[in-house]
Every structure is written in structure tokens, then in C-alpha cells.
């Protein structure tokens, strides 16, 4: 019996989209849209050229940063922002723990699950600035509006990640605790909490970091804090003070970043 010599078989990676006409239509459509989008972008090169020296002037106005003349306002703004960040993180996390537990599919009954998921969805669907505009209208200018905004945003962030971490936990460990006759709260405390705790501590610090940075933005729409100070210094054309504020913000964010990295390693 003779074996037919197989002709060399070719192989090519199968294309992502199988239907050739669809593949080509999509590619052509995307190319066409991009061409049109670039074609209609209105850049006035003359104005760009004229603006360059003015831009340079603007940048040099930041140097040297002036820490002294507005130091009191800076300290006040920073401490207000820190207060906002810390309190809203603590309150937000405290509220998000029961919500997050309720939003974990593997431990919550269906009605509780859908209710808590709805809370998280509402909290996550608005960007902080939009919430801040709303709460500033509701509570008036000042750090209280900022605090409410950040707490509200923290619930969505922390609750969702807590729920997902609980859903990813090792069911065997939790089952073993349940088999001892533990009550529900004991089960959460012994079977679930140890499994999610390290990640949750890390995320709490990360959220503190986010809340501090957000608090710098909220001031611009009236939410108080260092953002308000920064906005005022821009309005007064005191760019050297603004530069000082920006540097202080960067320093604090870096300090939080490094300390949270250290703490996270420690709790692992």
C-alpha cells in the first residue's frame, strides 16, 4: 500500500472576523471615519504659532513657586482636603461593607443581591464632578458638599470591589466554617473576612489616595478644599502660588502612594 506524499499544508492564523465582506467593510469604514475626523479638525496653525510665546510666558510665571505669601490659605485648603478625604473614605467604606456583602452573588439571596447591585450601579454611574455639582446645589458651597460627594463615590467603588473579591473567595474555607455550626455573622467573620481582608486594606488606602486627589478637583466646582484655594490663585493670576499648591498636592499624593505600598506588603 503506497502512502500518498502529502503536499505541504499551509497554515495561517484564522482572522478575528470570519466573514470577509464584514471584515473589509469594518476596516474601510474605520479608515474613512478617521480620515474625515482628521480632515474636519479645525486647527488654526497661525494662532498656534502666535500662542507659543504666550504659553511660554504662562509656564515661566509658575517659577519660582511661591510658598510664603499664601501659606496660610494653602495650609487651610490642604487640611480641609485631607479632612474630606479621610472622613469620606471612612464613612464610605463603612457604608459599602454591608452593601458589598449583599452584592456578592455567592453569599446573598437574590432579592438582596439585586437591591445592593442597584445601589452600586447608581453610585458608580455618575462621575465625581457631576455629583459634586449636584451636591453643591443641594448643600451649598463648602467642604460638606465635597465630603458627601466623595463618600457617595466611595460606596460604589469599594462596594463593587468588595463584592467581587467575596465572589472570588475559596468556597471550601467558608464551607468548613459553616460546618462547625457558626452563626451567619461568625461565618462572615471567620470564613469570609480573613480571605478578603488584605486586598480590602490595600483598596481602602488606594481609595484614600483617590479621594484626596478628587478633593483637589471638587474645589473648582465649589466643593471646598485645596481645589478652592487653587482656583482662587488662578483667578488672581498668582501662578507662583498655584505652582506651590500643585507641588504640595504632588508631595502628599506621593507620600500616600509610598505608605500604602508599604502597608499593603505588610498585610499580605
Amino acid at each position, binding site marked *: 500500500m503506497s502512502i500518498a506524499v502529502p503536499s505541504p499544508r499551509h497554515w495561517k492564523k484564522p482572522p478575528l472576523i470570519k466573514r470577509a465582506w464584514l471584515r473589509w467593510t469594518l476596516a474601510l469604514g474605520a479608515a474613512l471615519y478617521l480620515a474625515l475626523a482628521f480632515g474636519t479638525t479645525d486647527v488654526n496653525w497661525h494662532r498656534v504659532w502666535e500662542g507659543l510665546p504666550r504659553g511660554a510666558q504662562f509656564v515661566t510665571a509658575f517659577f519660582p513657586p511661591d510658598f510664603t505669601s499664601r501659606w496660610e490659605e494653602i495650609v487651610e485648603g490642604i487640611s480641609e482636603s485631607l479632612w474630606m478625604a479621610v472622613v469620606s473614605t471612612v464613612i464610605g467604606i463603612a457604608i459599602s461593607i454591608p452593601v458589598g456583602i449583599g452584592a456578592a452573588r455567592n453569599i446573598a439571596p437574590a432579592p438582596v443581591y439585586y437591591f445592593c447591585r442597584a445601589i452600586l450601579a447608581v453610585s458608580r454611574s455618575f462621575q465625581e464632578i457631576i455629583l459634586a455639582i449636584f451636591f453643591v446645589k443641594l448643600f451649598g458651597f463648602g467642604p460638606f458638599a465635597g465630603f458627601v460627594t466623595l463618600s457617595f463615590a466611595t460606596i460604589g467603588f469599594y462596594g463593587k470591589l468588595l463584592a467581587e473579591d467575596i465572589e472570588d473567595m475559596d468556597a*471550601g474555607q467558608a464551607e468548613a466554617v459553616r460546618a*462547625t*455550626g*457558626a452563626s451567619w455573622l*461568625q461565618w462572615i467573620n471567620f470564613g469570609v473576612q*480573613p480571605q478578603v481582608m488584605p486586598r480590602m486594606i490595600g483598596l481602602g488606602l488606594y481609595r484614600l489616595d483617590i479621594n484626596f486627589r478628587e478633593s483637589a478637583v471638587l474645589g473648582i466646582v465649589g466643593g471646598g478644599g485645596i481645589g478652592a484655594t487653587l482656583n482662587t490663585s488662578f483667578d488672581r493670576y498668582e501662578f507662583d502660588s498655584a505652582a506651590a499648591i500643585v507641588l504640595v498636592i504632588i508631595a502628599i499624593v506621593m507620600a500616600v502612594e509610598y505608605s500604602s505600598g508599604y502597608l499593603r506588603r505588610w498585610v499580605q
Partner: protein
Amino acid sequence: MLRIKGLTKRYRTGDLAIKGIDLDVPDGQVMALIGPSGAGKSTVIRCINRLVEPTAGSVALNDIEITGLGSAELRRARRRMGMIFQEYALVERLTVMENVLSGRLGYVGFWQSWLRRFPQSDIDEAFRLLQRVGLDAMADKRADELSGGQRQRVGICRALIQNPELLLVDEPTASLDPKTSRQIMRLIKELCAERKLSAIINIHDVMLAQMFAERIVGLRLGEIVYDGLPDKLTPAVLTSIYGEEDWSATIRKADDADEPVADNVVPFELPRPDRDRLAGLT
């Protein structure tokens, strides 16, 4: 005395895992439940403490009907049944001591357990059990620092500190080497004898089952196909449980009865092995 009558479990997927089995386990009996994967062994023991809710039938431990208990009563009933798991199922980020003490959760209040202020008698008992299995020096280590055999011994302590009347053991040796497997099985057998405990042990290893159990029940496709003495396990019986295979190497020969395990391990008939022996075998 555990009495199971007409126990049936149909999963939501429609699979009939157990088909109305009847089983009595008298006090102090160590029973091995063997059978192929998917025969329903795990489901049977999880239906006993209702980690899995049975579809029909009844389970009664010392005349207390477990099926049909409310949640508070079920928790009280679960205290009387210690469970030992495949892959140990220790809470890895808790310490050895916390894992052992978690066996007392059914007896202490929430705040007591939350603050880890267990009664002194529980702590004494925990140390006594850890000492018994040779791990008292490890009390403050985190569970994930231990080796497999050590973890399973902590799992045994967690089950025993419940002061159970029945041990439910689910594949205790599935992830252990052959020597550690024997040590763990011997330990379970010894502890059951010391405390007059009955035990149901799910196990894949037929030879281990024959060595350490007084009675063997074979499960196939959710039905009991064998119930009898370990010595009566013939190739024909094993074929009826597992299907056609060459069983000649699996069945323990009569002269193996003394169980010549490797090394200097004392046979399990000794009244009480010293803890150095157990401590050395990590």
C-alpha cells in the same frame, strides 16, 4: 447512632446524585464510603449536616431528625458533627489556633468570637488537641505556613474540638503522599477509638479504606452496591462498584494485616502513641 432513610438528592441541574439510600451507622463505628468520582459520596456526607440540602428522605443523629430543623436548631445540630475536608479547607489567613477555635463557633456568642475571647476551657482543650497531634508549638503560625499533613491535623483538631458525636470525613488523604495519608488515617482511627466516635470516611484509596475501616460501603451512581466487611471486598465486588478493571494489585492480602508501614512507625494498635512520633512526621 446515625440513621439515614430514603435519602435522595436531585441537583438543580436535574442530576440525581443520590437515589434513596438507607444507611445506619452505629456508635463508635468507623465506616468507609468508597465509589468512583461522581458516585455521590461527597453529596451523602454533605446531606448529613445539610451543607447540601437533601431533596427527600430523612437523616437522624441520636434520634434528632436533622432534615427539617430550623436554622438555629440546625446550627446546634452541626456542632455535634465534626467535618474534615479534602484539601484541609483551613482558613489560610487565620492562625492555627484560630482555625482550631473556629470549631467552637457554634458554642460561643458573636462578640466573644469576634474579639477572639474564647472561654479558657476551649483554649485549654485546643492546646490539648494540638499537643495530641504534635502541633502545639505551631499555635500562632498562619495556617498557610504548614505542610499538607500538618494542615490536615489542624483540620482534625478543628473537628474534634466541637466535641462531636459523629465525624464526617471527605477525602482526607486526597492531596497527601502515601505515608502521610496512612498517618492521617491512623490518627483519625485512633481518635475515634479514644472518643468512641463514629465516622463516615469518603475515600478513593480502596487499600486505605480496607486498612483503617471496620465497614465498607460502596456507592455507585447514587446507590449502595456493597455494604460489608473490608475483607469481603473481592474483585467481583470492586467491579460492581467501579466497573471492569484488574483489581489484583488493589486488594489487600491477608498477610498485610499487620500493615508493615514504612519507617519506624508503631502499629496503630498501640494504646496511645507518644506525640514526638507524630511531631516528627511532618
